[in-house]
């Protein structure tokens, strides 16, 4: 019987396991489906990781290495090349079961007091956005191309169009260029980029790669390998405008059209999913509606910076440790639901439990448009403003974060709405 099983050995799982060990758990197992720890960070060989956490610019493998180093100093058990297939929540305080398989241990049903879900996310594919055209070879998600390039050592093509301006697509524009490919354009459906500003500057502008905002791919040609891609401008309704077609001769299309939390195990366990995040609904300590099952990192909601994944996962790890040591924490006095108001697309957590000991609560969310100066306002059910935070600039590509003071929460009437107010200059 384990105290804690962490599903996923990427940044979220590593931080949660380390923290749970630090908080005193001694029977912890990390299940990792790949052959090494570190998750997707291993293929992110560019720098820019760790500025918040370590006040240093690290590469992905270096950032992962810091946490792997920490984990190796603990007694946390790790199983690599192991796939978790099913989670069966225990009823009425009975242990949870995790079904897992690998070549060495076979198919096993493992019992544990607590589970941290840290499976990360996957990329949206061509099918998710139904790009018309033929289906030749040469259409890759940006992350798959990144793995071929940085882990396997292969170039997926020579003349490239990138659809979507998510961060992985932007990073790959630079990476493919540095390896000798010609990146012809980055094409974004929305009127703004969904990536970080620094990536637009450092990965596109610095290499003279044009960014076509409010454009999309309307046709792909090539019976066997991509030969030609048609790009069209879209109107405010996001539909292609006839007559605006540009044709590019290319052999490769990279897709960077969004990430989706990978929650098949979560759904299978009967845990409620928030349609706004596609992740589990959680309380302020990252606990799902099933006692003893926690979620953190990109499986919960897609983050912009790994530093925030680590911080969130440490909260989950600490909460899992507290759960194992004390059972259910002190009974909540009451629960405040959070909802997203004007300009906000979701909130994590979805609910805050107030306990006898007042504590501040961190709330993460994204805005739905690019703005200049703006305020983030928390307003309770009675229409009272309980907190207000000023921002100089907001963009959907960047995750926002506020800390609701303990005092403000004590008197707030549920539900609490987080909304955005643009400040006229």
């Amino acid at each position: 019987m384990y105290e804690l099983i962490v599903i996923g050995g990427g940044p979220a799982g590593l931080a949660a396991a380390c923290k749970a060990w630090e908080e005193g758990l001694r029977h912890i197992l990390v299940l990792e489906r790949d052959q090494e720890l570190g998750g997707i960070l291993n293929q992110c060989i560019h720098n820019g990781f760790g500025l918040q956490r370590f006040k240093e610019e690290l590469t992905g493998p270096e950032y992962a290495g810091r946490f792997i180093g920490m984990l190796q100093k603990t007694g946390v058990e790790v199983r690599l090349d192991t796939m978790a297939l099913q989670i069966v929540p225990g009823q009425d305080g009975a242990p949870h079961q995790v079904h897992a398989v690998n070549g060495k241990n076979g198919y096993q049903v493992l019992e544990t007091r607590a589970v941290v879900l840290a499976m990360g996310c996957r990329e949206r594919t061509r099918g998710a956005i139904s790009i018309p055209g033929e289906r030749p070879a040469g259409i890759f998600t940006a992350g798959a191309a990144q793995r071929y390039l940085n882990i396997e050592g292969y170039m997926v093509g020579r003349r490239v169009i990138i659809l979507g301006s998510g961060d992985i697509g932007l990073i790959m524009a630079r990476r493919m260029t540095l390896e000798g490919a010609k990146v012809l354009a980055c094409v974004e459906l929305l009127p703004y980029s969904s990536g970080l500003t620094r990536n637009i500057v450092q990965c596109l502008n610095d290499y003279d790669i044009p960014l076509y905002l409010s454009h999309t791919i309307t046709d792909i040609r090539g019976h066997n390998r991509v030969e030609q891609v048609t790009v069209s401008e879209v109107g405010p309704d996001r539909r292609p405008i006839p007559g605006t077609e540009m044709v590019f001769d290319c052999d490769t299309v990279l897709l960077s059209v969004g990430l989706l939390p990978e929650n098949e195990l979560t759904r299978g366990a009967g845990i409620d999913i928030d349609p706004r995040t596609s992740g589990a609904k959680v309380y302020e300590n990252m606990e799902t509606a099933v006692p003893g099952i926690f979620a953190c990192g990109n499986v919960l909601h897609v983050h912009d910076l790994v530093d925030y994944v680590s911080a969130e996962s440490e909260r989950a790890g600490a909460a899992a440790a507290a759960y194992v040591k004390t059972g259910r924490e002190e009974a909540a006095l009451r629960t405040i639901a959070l909802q997203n108001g004007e300009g906000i697309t979701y909130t994590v957590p979805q609910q805050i439990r107030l306990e006898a000991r007042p504590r501040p609560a961190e709330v993460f969310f994204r805005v739905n448009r690019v703005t200049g100066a703006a305020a983030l306002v928390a307003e309770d059910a009675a229409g009272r403003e309980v907190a207000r935070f000023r921002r100089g600039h907001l963009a959907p590509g960047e995750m926002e974060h506020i800390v609701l003071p303990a005092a403000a929460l004590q008197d707030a009437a549920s539900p609490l709405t987080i909304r955005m107010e643009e400040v006229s200059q």
Partner: protein
Amino acid sequence: MYDVIVIGCGVVGAATAYRLARYRLRVAVLEACNDVANGTTKANSAIIHAGYDPEPGTLMAALNVEGNRMTAEICRKLDVPFRRCGSLVVGFTPADRAMLETLYQRGVANGVPELSLLSGEEVHTLEPALSPEVCGALLAPTAGIIDPWGFALAMIETAVQNGVELHRSCPVTAITALPEGNFRLSTPKGSFETRCVINAAGVDADRVHRLLEPIHWKMTPNRGEYYLLDKSEGSLVDHVIFQCPGPEGKGVLVSPTVHGNLIAGPNAEPVTDRLDLGNTADGLNFVRARALKSVPGIHFRQNIRNFSGIRANTDQGDFLIGASPNHPGFIDLAGIKSPGLSSAPAIGKRAAELVAEAGLPLEEKAEFLDERHVVRFRHLSPEEKNALIAKDPRYGRVICRCETITEGEIVDALHGPVPACTVNGVKRRCNAGMGRCQGGFCGPRVQEIIARELGVPPTEILLEQEGSWLLACETKQPKEGSGHV
């Protein structure tokens, strides 16, 4: 000298080979593509029709109903995913209800068992997700869903196990009639002489026949586009949901698949380029709108793949099955449009009869191996899983996380009787890369296994046909004339 050469290894060619494999005949199958079932068989609605659609008296009517019965039996013996989930043709108007009555009568005339007409209330009890506008339906319990590609593979694999030769990447470029009624087929892999030729070349059946002599009919290839949705949508309906057939064909269907997904499609659009399997925005919008008319709750956001297939339609009303009047040994299995998949085993049986009519005796072999087993790790019990892993640990390594496909199953696909030689060949055999991430995660690992098992460099691995390369080159490959010489 061969007794029979089958040109084309789609489901019809495979069913024919499977039928002929039980007789004392020397048989070869020549397939133009680098893998089997690469045409219409790989891209269709994946339905085994009950048989109420074709006009009574046609070949389509007889062969569909017989093929439906035979399919269930073959799938059981050869371990092919098939489920008799039944179909509903739903009606929205009084005119539709009259059409349902017509279909019912047609079905009865064609010998389709267990048909019944349902009221609006009855059909909504059966399928709560149907539109409230649906006011009646024709229920055909014998209709089913199948893995059409796996069906063709199972039949050709069994044929090969029983001595039939299969030559892939072997397009027939010329056919010469020899004295005594024999034929010589020219291919890039050499020439083949045979007593009997069976033309099962699908959308290219006209071109193949014209290699021998002029033909009186015309191929009118017609493309249909589809959505394939995530398994999260797979249980939205239990039956195949058709709409009433109209001038545009059988209309758009919504159906579960044997793999647990939901499929919606097709439209119907004439095409000139038989290799253009593209999707169009208009075609997909049409399919989506029509599918939502039957089942309004489909979440098209959960789409994981669009595809399209080409129907081998002709300007004739029926299948074109029979020997050439001038060349009794040249047998067409042409114009196999819908319900071609459902009819395939019966067409294969008919083909064998035509071979006999051409003068070749059908003597049954003493030994005919008529079974096949496929390891599908995800469907095993925990005990079976452990037994398998103990025997070969590669069955414990999950490579495709979305579909839970193990390394052992991928290796099986690469070393079967008709082994995979491409990434899509692996996908179609064992489903690795068929799930919601569409190979985003497992693609590199599948290629690594293919390279290792087939002993080829990763840069030579193809997605599909010749020219469909996946990797341009290794990184940091020194350019000629630079670095050390």
